[in-house]
């Protein structure tokens, strides 16, 4: 049984630590190891958690998305070793709080590509806090929100309700596959944050999304089975060529088998595809959600279909 990891991210000042602090007060979060990443020589945020025990690690003086990626791997291995040796209380999950400027893709890549970690841990959910008063600011904030399974709109006690509604609409345009919850004083349903999004990609609207500033989501609905080999060729080539423009891809694909294949990637970091046993109902059309910059949905679909012909 793998130990689930929940990655908690969100831009500077968006309320990550407040949400984490509240979460850790919940009894259901009792058996949770926490890794807090802070920038700066003197780590401060973790003191706000009010729970500094042997299962709380602080990685300071660098960011786990760049110079401290090796430290994150080491810390996760160390947690396993110390748990197995009985040196620390047992834990059933790991919560990683990133810095406010962390880019999620390199962290996901570290967790997926490490030779040891994927055998012991599974990245179950990415949660991003979004400042309910100020919205998304800076490219990192967009990357964090695009990568998220759950978006937590913070400070809903302070923000204007109309502002919150507008932000929810903006977030639904950016990342329609994520669910959005509102948090007041950092309070949020723990269960929602600890599991991946339960949104069925087949429920997403496929009408073209009105262009706004920043990246947008494209939703493709595709009839007929997609050849898995040609999809792999197409996606690896697309991520290589257009990786800088793509923040996130999520797909539920009909590959001609009994059940669909779930595909997910955060920029270049591709999760192991999951082959499901069956479809939930009769609608077996493939869905592909892409969040990115300057990619036309018709061009994308035409290219994917052309690659399918190449394998026929």
């Amino acid at each position, binding site marked *: 049984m793998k130990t689930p990891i929940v990655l908690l991210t969100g831009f500077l000042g968006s309320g990550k630590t407040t949400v984490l602090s509240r979460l850790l007060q919940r009894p259901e979060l009792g058996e949770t190891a926490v890794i807090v990443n802070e920038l700066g020589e003197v780590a401060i945020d973790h003191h706000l958690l009010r729970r500094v025990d042997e299962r709380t690690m602080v990685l300071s003086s660098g960011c786990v998305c760049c110079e401290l990626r090796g430290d994150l791997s080491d810390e996760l291995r160390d947690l396993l070793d110390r748990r197995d040796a009985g040196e620390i209380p047992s834990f059933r999950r790991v919560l990683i709080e990133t810095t406010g400027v962390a880019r999620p893709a390199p962290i996901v890549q570290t967790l997926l590509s490490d030779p040891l970690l*994927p055998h012991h841990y599974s990245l179950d959910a990415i949660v991003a806090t979004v400042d309910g008063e100020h919205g998304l600011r800076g490219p990192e904030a967009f990357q964090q929100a695009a990568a998220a399974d759950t978006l937590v709109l913070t400070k809903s006690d302070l923000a204007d309700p109309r502002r919150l509604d507008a932000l929810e609409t903006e977030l639904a345009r950016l990342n329609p596959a994520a669910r959005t919850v509102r948090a007041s004083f950092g309070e949020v349903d723990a269960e929602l944050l600890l599991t991946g999004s339960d949104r069925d990609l087949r429920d997403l609207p496929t009408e073209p999304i009105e262009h706004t500033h920043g990246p947008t989501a494209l939703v493709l609905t595709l009839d007929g089975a997609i050849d898995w080999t040609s999809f*792999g*060729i197409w996606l*690896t080539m697309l991520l290589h*060529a257009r990786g800088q423009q793509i923040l996130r891809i999520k797909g539920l694909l009909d590959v001609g088998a009994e059940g669909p294949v779930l595909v997910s990637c955060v920029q270049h970091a*591709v999760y192991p595809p999951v082959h499901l046993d069956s479809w939930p109902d009769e609608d077996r059309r493939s869905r592909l959600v892409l969040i990115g910059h300057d990619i036309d949905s018709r061009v994308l679909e035409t290219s994917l279909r*052309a*690659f399918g012909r*190449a394998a026929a």
Partner: protein
Amino acid sequence: MSKEHWAEAGGGARARAFRATALNRVLDHYGLSVHAWAAGAYVLRDRKGGTAVVSDLGALWVEAERLIGAPLDPLDPSLVEALQR
């Protein structure tokens, strides 16, 4: 410990040969060819005798670009048109 590339997981020699055939339809547009080699690797060739051994699909595009000296793009209209023929 090497990890199998996500797009190649669970496939045997037959799947690799099928993948090489599909790849060749794409690479032919750029004057390249590929064949499945030992230990999951592929050998890329250009028409001038240049070769490169790549470990998986992820690495293949980097080497293919190096051989042709230009970027590859699956959304390139001329490639898409060639694949539709």
